[in-house]
């Protein structure tokens, strides 16, 4: 058994790393430390990219924090004919 164990590699570190990255990106938002606009831009892009081919440079995410209300502005330029086909 010991010889078998010797060759069986227990690679749990990559799992730890992934779990931490995911968890901390959310916790940093809760404690107000993440650049929320940048994060939203990435996540929104990922969702849209599943359905439409888009140019990353033509996506603009703006977050304004006001005392009464905050606004999230997302501006995505679609490639020509994208919507017509679908």
């Amino acid at each position, binding site marked *: 058994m010991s010889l078998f164990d*010797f060759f069986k*590699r*227990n690679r749990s*570190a990559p799992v*730890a*790393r992934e779990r*931490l*990255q995911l968890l901390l990106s959310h916790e940093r938002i809760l*404690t107000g*430390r993440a650049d929320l606009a940048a994060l939203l831009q990435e996540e929104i892009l990922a969702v849209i990219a599943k359905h439409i081919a888009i140019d990353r440079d033509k996506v603009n995410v703006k977050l304004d924090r006001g005392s009464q209300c905050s606004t999230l502005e997302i501006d995505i330029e679609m490639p020509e004919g994208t919507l017509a086909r679908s």
Partner: protein
Amino acid sequence: MSKVMVVTSGKGGVGKTTSSASLGAALAQAGQNVVVIDFDVGLRNLDLVMGAERRVVFDLVNVVQGDAKLAQALIRDKRVDTLSLLPASQTRDKDALTEEGVGRVIEELRGKFDWIICDSPAGIEKGAMLAMRFADIAVVVTNPEVSSVRDSDRIIGMLDSKTQLAENGGKFEKHLLLTRYSAARAARGEMLKVDDVLEILAIPLLGIVPESTEILNASNVGCPITLHNPASNAARAYSDAARRLLGEKIEMNDHAERRGFMSRLLGRKAAMA
């Protein structure tokens, strides 16, 4: 020019007190005038780790409350005369320390020492907040383990928002001290690597302290490891870290024990038995 340095982590048991004592001793051995303050009111341990538990007469709370003068509470180390300790109190009163009082004591210490090292209690309660409140720089002690990394991330956020320096718009200097690291286990994929932790926490690395039986030996006898066994890997890691704090450029080293194939095989057997 004196520096106030908080040694903090969020999580308990990662090596804050050991690191405070070891970095303090290493800085003092390098000729700096150092005081290490125990902020863990109610659960003091720095005195024990530094071998001064029988010399405590007055403590931080006595000084903050004006019952003793600073000079009466400071304990000078018997081995290095530029190293002093300001012990915590064993009182159970959580409000024994006030922000104003701690600020006054630290201001007074700035006039006497080059380095004022604040050994923070675990957690994010008042004691931990007061330990970091007046600091200029921080050493974040982290183990390569998920809960320690998460808590360190939380503490880094607090250093950037709750310290006086940060509130005044200053950039708070933070350093990562990775402790209880095993290069061999990281290489086998069983432990987060140095680079993983650095990428996640995104603060500069001060040093890598290997997991070592010598650390326990040193605390058993109440002597900082840089004094007790200066040739050990862990002591060399702390000495290197102290020299980096003094501005020296020293190549990063994980201070791992490099063992041959046979002794590794035997080591594994011994661990399993």
